């Protein structure tokens, strides 16, 4: 029996979330778990509907944790590491934009011109006039690089490479 498109999309979306949190599980077993969940959701959906079937499985993170608790050894989660590093970079980018906007605002308030500033080791040149605004960012930020690497290491739980990633239960 073929599932309606809406149900398949709902199931796909839910399983995408589960897969993200299952990242520490070895690939072959992770694929097996997801394949089995897909079939079980199809079976449950025929019984109670897809929305209820998904609800009965619980939150993707909690379900993934139940599976991971059964693992003898957990690997680092590189996908979460990339997300962590991305979050650090996104916050830094927002802060840099706020800093550059502040510079431009100050320049405009004093009649325009060019100003050079520093942000986390980056050189920020701002040009502001009645005709427009312009920015140039150059250099290398060690602070940002270190923060990004730390974000990656912490979010991926990379210490499991060293500790062997003991099972949680």
């Amino acid at each position, binding site marked *: 029996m073929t599932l309606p498109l809406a149900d398949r999309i709902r199931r796909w979306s839910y399983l995408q979330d589960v897969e993200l949190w299952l990242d520490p599980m070895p690939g072959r077993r992770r694929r097996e778990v997801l394949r089995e969940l897909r079939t079980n959701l199809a079976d449950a959906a025929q019984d109670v509907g897809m929305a209820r079937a998904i609800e009965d499985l619980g939150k993707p993170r*909690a379900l993934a944790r139940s*599976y991971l608790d059964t693992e003898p050894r957990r690997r680092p989660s590189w996908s979460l590491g990339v997300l962590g590093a991305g979050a650090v970079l996104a916050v830094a980018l927002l802060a840099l934009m706020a800093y550059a906007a502040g510079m431009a605002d100050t320049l405009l308030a004093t009649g325009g011109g060019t100003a050079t500033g520093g942000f986390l080791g980056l050189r920020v040149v701002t040009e502001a006039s009645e005709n427009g605004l312009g920015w140039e960012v150059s250099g290398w930020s060690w602070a940002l690089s270190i923060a990004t690497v730390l974000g990656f290491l912490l979010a991926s739980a990379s210490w499991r490479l060293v500790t062997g990633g003991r099972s949680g239960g």
Partner: protein
Amino acid sequence: MSDARDPQLLKGVLPMLVIGLLGAAESYGYELVTRLRTAGLDGIAPGTVYPTLTRLEREGRLTSRLVPSPSGPARKYYRPTPAGEAYYASALAAWDELGAVVGAVATRREDDR
């Protein structure tokens, strides 16, 4: 049976119940959930049962085979291995002993009143 069960208690006996039911007849994940509900665990969540199946299989207490399914991808049917049956017998004996202790304490309490 009441739905207000101690989750830790359920977690402790679920492997025994799963192997017990699968020993009577092999099942795939969702079917096993419905069998557990029919047996009295009305509120049992699939999200509790499926990881238990995965763990028991990894521990060598269950084995599985894929059977084509009309609802999509093949279903994974589980049944106990000899190690699983041995675990079941041992867990059931331990449960009986514990049940006897609980019963004895409850009886003594009633007698002392």
